[in-house]
C-alpha cells in the first residue's frame, strides 16, 4: 500500500476499527523521518493489527502492518521476508512505493493486492501495474476522496486497476 500527501487522515479513515487480518500489510507512507514512530503509534491505536516500523529483516507475518521507515526502501524477498534496502530515491522519494511493489514476485498460492492512495506525483503506478501483471489485484483511490489526486491518477492511467474506490469501500473489501 502506497500513500503520500493526505496520508495520515486517509489512513485514519481506512484503518479505524480494522480487525486483525489474515494478511500482512506493507505500508509505504512518504513522510519525514522524525514522525515515523508517531505515525506507527497513531495507526497502532486505530486497529487490531500490530503496526511496526520495519527494522532490518523480518519474516512476513499475518496480522502485522510493516511501515517503511523514511530514507530507505522496503523490499520483499521471495514473498516471505521483508527487508530494508539502501538505494537512491525513485520518483523523488525514498522509500518508494514502486520499489516495494516491484519486489513482489508471482505466487499463485498467495493473494497479492496493490493499493495506491492520495499523494503527489506518480509513485506506485509502475508497481501497481507490476502487481497486476503477476496476477494480483489492484486498487486506486478515487478522485473525489483523494486529498491529492496524483498518485492514484497515474495508477489509474496504467489501465491496470481493478477497483477505483474511496477508503470506506477499500476498507469493506479488506475483510
Amino acid at each position, binding site marked *: 500500500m502506497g500513500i503520500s500527501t493526505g496520508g495520515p487522515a486517509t489512513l485514519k479513515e481506512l484503518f479505524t476499527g480494522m480487525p486483525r487480518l489474515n494478511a500482512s500489510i506493507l505500508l509505504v507512507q512518504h513522510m519525514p523521518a522524525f514522525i515515523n514512530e*508517531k505515525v506507527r503509534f497513531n495507526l497502532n491505536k486505530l486497529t487490531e493489527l500490530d503496526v511496526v516500523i520495519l527494522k532490518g529483516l523480518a519474516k512476513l507475518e499475518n496480522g502485522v502492518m510493516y511501515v517503511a521507515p523514511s530514507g530507505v526502501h522496503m523490499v520483499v524477498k521471495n514473498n516471505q521476508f521483508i527487508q530494508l534496502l539502501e538505494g537512491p530515491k525513485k520518483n523523488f522519494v525514498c522509500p518508494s512505493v514502486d520499489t516495494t511493489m516491484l519486489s513482489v514476485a508471482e505466487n499463485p498460492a498467495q493473494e497479492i493486492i496493490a493499493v495506491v492512495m492520495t499523494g503527489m506525483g506518480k509513485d506506485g503506478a509502475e508497481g501497481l501495474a507490476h502487481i497486476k501483471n503477476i496476477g494480483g489485484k489492484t486498487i486506486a483511490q478515487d478522485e473525489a476522496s483523494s486529498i491529492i489526486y496524483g498518485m492514484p491518477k497515474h495508477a489509474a492511467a496504467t489501465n491496470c486497476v481493478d477497483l477505483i474506490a474511496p477508503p470506506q469501500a477499500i476498507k469493506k473489501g479488506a475483510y
Partner: protein
Amino acid sequence: MPELNGFETVKAIVDEGLFEGNVVCMLTGEQEPPAGLETISEYILDYIHKPFSMTELVNIIENSTSYLASGVE
C-alpha cells in the same frame, strides 16, 4: 508570497535544513499542486484547498498536532 509561493517556501525550508520538528499542511487555492513538486511530497503531510469548511480546517490541524504530540519516544 509575494516572492515565493507556499510550495517554494516549503522547499526553501527543506533546502536550508530547517525542517526537522515541523509538519506542513498546505492550505491553497490550487486544486492540484504545480508539477515538479513531487520532490517535497514527503514533507507535506496534508493539503486542503479552498473553499474549505472550519471543520476540515480543525480536523487537519488536530491530525497534524497529533504527530507532534503523541508523546512517543
